[in-house]
């Protein structure tokens, strides 16, 4: 009996880690793309919230999780278009605009939610899971890893695609150049502004889908401020992963586990304060930063606007 019980707890932990980790994963992958291209995106939190709200509305009225994810992506793109126009094209301060987008995202989603639903928070049913034949029969790993939302698998595929893009395509090379040495990219005849714009667009879309996953699958409900700092967590994951997509995947999963550990512990009959549990991922990040402070890496041209001819 005890063995079965442990299996259930472990399954819940891994499965919860994946569900909580996917929004982080998508957002951190998005941030990886734009950080590599030299845009520090402090507006991620706002983009996630906009994606979460718009996605929730889509899934609620359209009765389809996929419509929700699509609308979430569009919401994220709309939120990040401010970043593109103001920071990439006009060269305004990325930190100030990032803060503004986060504040606006927090405020507008809370206001819209309040205007639409008042103080009631309607819930969504859980979307269907896809089980992978044969593999889902493995104990513990089967029900937790191989019976998940389709989007979870797609996220992993996306990481693979991104590794390939960064490693062996011109697009990836351009993106990296835009962050490492924008002058070189410009000299090679590629527009820095366009490259960075595409990168930020991808970030917005991914953060939007991440937020939509959070509200549609993770919580099943939209509540104001529901991201609770996950956008910033994504930035740190990306920083510690040194821009490597595979490490982003691993890091996001680990942080997902620390986010979902409360539920698993409650299943195991251990009751600890949720405040303490909510602090765990941030404590983990600070410890990681203190231990590996020398190893975190950011591209040299990060957060610097590019002006042709400037040296």
């Amino acid at each position, binding site marked *: 009996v005890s063995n079965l019980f442990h299996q259930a707890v472990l399954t819940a932990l891994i499965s919860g880690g994946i569900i909580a980790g996917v929004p982080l994963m998508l957002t951190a992958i998005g941030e990886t793309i734009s950080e590599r291209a030299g845009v520090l995106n*402090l507006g991620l939190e706002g983009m996630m919230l906009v994606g979460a709200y718009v996605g929730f509305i889509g899934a609620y009225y359209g009765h389809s999780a996929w419509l929700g994810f699509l609308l979430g992506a569009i919401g994220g793109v709309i939120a990040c278009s*401010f970043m593109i126009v*103001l920071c990439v094209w*006009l*060269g*305004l*301060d990325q*930190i*100030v*605009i990032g*803060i*503004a*987008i986060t*504040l*606006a995202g*927090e*405020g*507008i989603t*809370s*206001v819209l*939610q*309040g*205007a639409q639903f*008042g103080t009631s928070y309607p819930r969504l049913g859980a979307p269907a899971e896809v089980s992978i034949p044969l593999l889902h029969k493995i104990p513990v790993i089967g029900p937790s890893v191989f019976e998940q939302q389709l989007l979870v698998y797609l996220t992993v595929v996306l990481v693979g695609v991104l590794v390939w893009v960064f490693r062996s395509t011109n697009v990836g090379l351009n993106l990296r150049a835009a962050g490492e040495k924008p002058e070189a990219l410009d000299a090679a005849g590629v527009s820095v502004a366009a490259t960075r714009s595409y990168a930020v667009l991808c970030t917005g879309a991914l953060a939007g889908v991440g937020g939509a996953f959070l509200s549609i699958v993770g919580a099943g409900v939209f509540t*104001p401020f529901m991201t*609770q*700092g996950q956008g*910033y967590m994504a*930035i*740190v994951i990306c*920083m510690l992963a040194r821009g490597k997509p595979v490490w982003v995947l691993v890091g996001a999963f680990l942080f997902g586990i620390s986010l979902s550990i409360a539920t698993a512990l409650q299943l195991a009959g251990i009751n600890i*304060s949720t*405040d*303490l549990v*909510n*602090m765990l991922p*941030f*404590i983990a*990040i*600070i410890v990681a*930063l*203190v231990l590996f*402070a*020398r190893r*975190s890496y*950011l591209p*040299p*041209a990060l957060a*610097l*606007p590019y*002006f042709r*001819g*400037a*040296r």
Partner: protein
Amino acid sequence: MSVIRARETMPIVDEPLRPERSRSAARIIDLLVRSLVPVILALIAGGILLLILGRDPLSFYSDIWHGGVQQGSWQDSAMRMAPLLLIAVGLIFVFRANIWNLGYDGQFLLAAAVLSGLGPSLAAHVPLWLAMTLLFAVAAAVGAAWTIIPAGLKAGYDTNEIITTLMMSFIGVGLANILVKGPFQDPAVNIPQTKVLALDKMLPAIPSTRIHVGVVVALFAAIVAYYVLTRTSFGLRVQVLGANPRAARHVGVQVRKLIVSSFLVSGALIGAAAAADILGVWGYARANWNPAYGDTVIPFVFLARLNPLAVIPFIAFFAVLSTGGDLAAQNANLPTDFLLVLVALILIFMTLIEFIGRRRELGQSYLPEGMREALRKPLIRRRAASRGASHEGPEAA
């Protein structure tokens, strides 16, 4: 200092000689325009947003006036100023050094939790003036202590302080909740909150008003900060560090020490803001209480061009907006988070106006010096080069 700043921002292009007075008048007008236009544009855009939501913007804004100024509510606004102003001054200290302390929420709430936990028992045993002074000191110490890790990482390894302060902020908020629900919980009530300070154990009011003396403390802090930042060598070193860390190291500024000390001052002021708010208005701390003063203060810090005196009218404006905003949002049946949208709009319009101003190379910028220089250099260079007067400067990137 102000003379130096004015000189360094003189336009590069030769201006036709004009009488001195009209030029300085033009500069003041320009300064006013560039400070006020973003706020006005944001209020207009917010009004349009209210129209889209089906609310009446005129009655929303007049509710703000009713709830924030009229019938003695100006006194509430004045009291709201105390924490906002102290946080603003704390942020000005680090922003001038081009350091981003974004961990104000954690510093504020942790200081609030600790001081309201210690407050009731302390106030029962020592005279009021001593208790208040000690509690301000405790709050300042807690706020400062919470910046030590980000400051150390920034000074030692140049770790991005935006990230570390944010992470420490989330930890601080959680720890404050744990403290309020655990050791500092008032055993007499069921809701998670600390013991309430008796009214006669709180900050005394200014005679013939309801306004507590914390407001005076905040105004005094702004004046002292102005003096320190513009008239002392510490202020100059902060300025140099903010403008160019490499140059600062070159002229013998102990950069690491300066990073840590400006972080500590900033954290201490933010902690003191918590003391002014708790000891002056609330008297206790609740779990999950977060007024998020810091987020809303940021645009005004920039609009005031990181000047601790110039920030006072902006903070007064926002204090009215937020005090009256509670009533207005309630009447319009909207969450008070609508104010966050207004603040974000102010930030966006501010950077846009700044962009237009930079294009015209007028007046001063409200971005931190280093960033401002980095932004402006290309324009200056290009112009200098096109006039055939090319010169080598330090690398911008």
